[in-house]
């Protein structure tokens, strides 16, 4: 059974704003989003975009300020948003259903779009009414007059002047539209559409901005300085909606701000840097390098375990232990000392891996006693080599370089605090999921900590397999011969593993890829989906590097998949994707690769 903790809920979408605030860990992304400007929240699914948008809402802000900013200084330093937020939800079911309208009306794409527009407007209006109710209730203002104006100006027909009644009325309209769609009654559908208020079919922002204007006009005492319309999951919305919102980011009524979620690739319509700086702020919510997300992960995990076990001093390191992959500067000499786990791994590997043996000898380290007293040598030669050694020793057959995959079921290598943080990619939903699974697997609190490596390893492997199952589920259009997203992920994963484990030993093996011009357009499209669902992660090549196209950009596999493919948590050198795919297709390893570092 799932653990009962406000930190354990998987998806912020289904949390009440108050609960989002109670489990929220503030980041620099949040500070950016609070600014009085348009924002484009870019990142893969589950990276916390919904959480951030919900944190801007009135209800979340109230809880955040009253319950979480309890320290006087932090409360004083905090500047709440100077805009009133309307959060407009979406999800994959809603998007797929909007999409299905095109299939239902194949001969009339214009009518299909009109129905989509009507549905999107109704959804936005429903959310407006909820926000209006909250404002009026808090300010103790009778909502009847505003409701009456709403009914008149949206031509709702005979409706009692309550916002709940208005919502019922709006939902009825959807049912009527659906009834005609199910019967394939296009004439009836068009008749109903013609009877609705024009703001439902005009610009996608017409209905919500009109609703806000009605509020401003008739409840002047409670009118905010600005409204912020927060559209979630625009990355999977209909194209016309995306286009209209992007255009609006550049030029729109000054009384309104737009906060929009998007995938990790900058939309084509917004690729002009100068305009980006002035019109909106692009907020990148992914972490190309493992250490970037560590502070957030550590704070979240600390809150999670302290809340779960009601133990204010309990720390993640105690509960999960050290990771074999940890490469902290502060690691002491004992980590590499004679008889330590890494010393044993290096000694064993040197016994059957000629290239590693040569590497040690080239660095004046004895293969029989791979230690270094000199800190500089240890850092340069052993600490850098550690992750590669662990994986080569774990997966490489003893027959000196023979490609012989070994199962890791009995000797876990993926465990420890740093593995949790790395696998989560700093993605709150993934991090919650891993932590929930760990404590579900463990059953009840361990004593003594840490959780056994075998248990952790089992949980992490299952999480990796689950991620791959999710990737496999994504539909692939095209001929039976076309490679699917899962095929590409597996080809890249297997290629990187083979390079790491079976090539000449290197402390800097191939760890990622860049999409070159020889990659088929259909594969480029799949990679775009892979980025959105978090199968791939963009790796910055310089600060403020916002990818504006897939081709030419550098990526790596999600660290969530590392246990599945036996890969480290480092964004090493990159290879051309077309080369990796060709090599995997041909069932042979690459010898030559292009570097991008």
């Amino acid at each position: 059974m799932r653990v009962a903790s406000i930190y354990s809920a998987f998806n912020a979408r289904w949390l009440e704003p108050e609960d989002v605030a109670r489990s929220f860990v503030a980041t620099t992304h949040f500070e950016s989003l609070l600014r009085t400007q348009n924002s484009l929240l870019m990142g893969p699914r589950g990276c916390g975009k919904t959480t951030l948008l919900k944190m801007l809402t009135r209800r979340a802000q109230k809880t955040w300020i009253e319950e979480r900013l309890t320290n006087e200084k932090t409360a004083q330093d905090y500047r709440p948003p100077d805009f009133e937020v309307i959060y407009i939800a979406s999800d994959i079911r809603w998007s797929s259903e909007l999409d299905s309208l095109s299939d239902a009306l194949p001969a009339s794409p214009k009518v299909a779009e009109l129905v989509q527009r009507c549905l999107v407007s109704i959804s936005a209006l429903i959310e407006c009414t909820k926000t209006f109710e909250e404002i009026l209730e808090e300010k103790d203002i009778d909502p009847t007059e505003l409701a009456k104006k709403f009914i008149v100006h949206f031509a709702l027909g005979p409706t009692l002047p309550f916002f709940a009644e208005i919502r019922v009325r709006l939902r009825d309209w959807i049912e009527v539209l659906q009834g005609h769609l199910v019967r394939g009654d296009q004439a009836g559908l068009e008749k109903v559409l013609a009877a609705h208020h024009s703001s439902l079919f005009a610009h996608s922002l017409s209905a919500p901005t009109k609703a806000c204007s009605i509020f401003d006009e008739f409840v002047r005492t409670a009118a905010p300085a600005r409204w912020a319309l927060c559209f979630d999951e625009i990355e999977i919305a209909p194209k016309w909606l995306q286009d209209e919102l992007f255009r609006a980011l550049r030029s729109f009524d000054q009384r309104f701000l737009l906060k929009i979620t998007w995938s990790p690739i900058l939309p084509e319509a917004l690729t002009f840097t100068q305009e980006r700086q002035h019109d909106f702020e692009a907020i990148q919510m992914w972490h190309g390098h493992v250490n970037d997300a560590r502070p957030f992960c550590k704070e979240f995990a600390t809150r999670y375990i302290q809340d779960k076990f009601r133990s204010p001093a309990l720390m993640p390191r105690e509960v999960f232990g050290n990771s074999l992959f940890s490469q902290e500067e502060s690691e002491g000499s004992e980590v590499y000392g004679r008889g330590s786990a890494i010393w044993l791994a290096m000694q064993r590997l040197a016994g059957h891996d000629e290239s590693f043996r040569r590497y040690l000898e080239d660095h004046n380290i004895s293969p029989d006693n791979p230690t270094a007293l000199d800190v500089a040598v240890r850092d340069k030669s052993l600490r850098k080599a550690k992750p590669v050694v662990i994986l080569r020793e774990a997966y490489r057959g003893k027959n000196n370089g023979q490609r012989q995959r070994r199962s890791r079921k009995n000797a876990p290598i993926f465990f420890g605090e740093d593995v949790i943080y790395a696998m989560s990619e700093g993605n709150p939903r993934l991090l919650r999921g891993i932590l929930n699974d760990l404590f579900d697997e463990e059953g009840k609190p361990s004593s003594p900590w840490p959780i056994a490596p075998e248990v952790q390893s089992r949980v992490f492997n299952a999480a990796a397999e689950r991620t791959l199952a999710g990737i496999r589920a994504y539909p692939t259009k095209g001929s039976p011969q076309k490679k699917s997203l899962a095929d590409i992920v597996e080809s890249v994963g297997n290629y990187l593993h083979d390079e790491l484990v079976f090539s000449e030993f290197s402390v800097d093996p191939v760890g990622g890829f860049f999409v070159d011009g020889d990659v088929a357009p259909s594969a480029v499209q799949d990679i775009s989906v892979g980025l959105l669902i978090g199968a791939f992660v963009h790796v910055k090549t310089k600060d403020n590097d916002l990818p504006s196209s897939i081709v030419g950009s550098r990526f790596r596999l999600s660290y969530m998949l590392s246990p599945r493919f036996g890969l480290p948590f480092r964004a090493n050198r990159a290879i051309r994707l077309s080369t990796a795919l060709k090599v995997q297709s041909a069932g042979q390893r690459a010898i030559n690769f292009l570097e991008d570092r």
Partner: protein
Amino acid sequence: MKIKSFDECSIAEAQKCAQAMIVACGYEQRSRGITSLVEMLPPIKTALCFEEFSTILARPSNESFFRQKGFTLETVGSNQSQKVQSLLDGVIRASLSNGSALLLDISTMTRSWHGALVRQLRTAEYGSEITTFFAYTPSVFIHPRAGFASNEFVAPVEGFAALTTPEYPVAAIIGLGYEKEEALGLQQLLDPSLTILFKPTAGQNDRYYKHVLANNREILARTPEDCSFDYRLDSPAETLSNFASLVNGLRSTHRVVLASLGPKMFGLMSFLIATQFPEVSVWRVSSGVHGQPRDSVADLKRATILKVVWQPSERLAHSR
């Protein structure tokens, strides 16, 4: 039309009442299963022949079989739901004068065709009651496929997208099949707040059930016991009744998605339920062109029939 009643019945009862019969003619021997059990075939007989894979495995012999039995063969694409609707409409109208009762062998039809049959019955008005006998026979056990086939479709079935605004969380009710991790993948994609699983069972020594458990180990382990149910393949009416109660209980707090990955009878029930609760969405997961055809033989001892009586509905006034 709307559902008046449903129950299980025997082949003998269906045979006695049916004025028309519709079957699928594909590459599986199983296509012939139900027809081979009917001693006296009704006067109107239509075989929907798949446009795809029209020359492989048992397809040529199936075509000969149905021709010999007096069926009219109609070629239909596996996703051509409009054509299936139109053919069903023709069959119903042709049999109306004798009190319309239809025997429909759904065993090897696609989910798109199932949706089309139910949608036609749901949306058309014929002025009198219509009885449908949905017949299903599982195949003699064959092992699940090794490896994973890509999906071509993961989406609402045409006519069964509910269009409810995203105010409430999603509950996914998944009829499990025995393909490895298929349900887990769907769950990952849909990201529901609540998942409820239905596992098909045929009693003791059911090899299919054992594979359902083994190949869904991960999703079953992550689903609380009170959200995981067994259902009897040979008791479709009881299953439909329980299934409908569950959906009825959830629909006020969740946006329900129904998806069947296992036996076709459960998929058909999803469509029947959606006729009662229009806010429920029915999805299909299909490998489509990426699937590899495999032959299967009907397990005739386990044939079941769900009898559904449809009555004219009072057409709601949809004008504002």
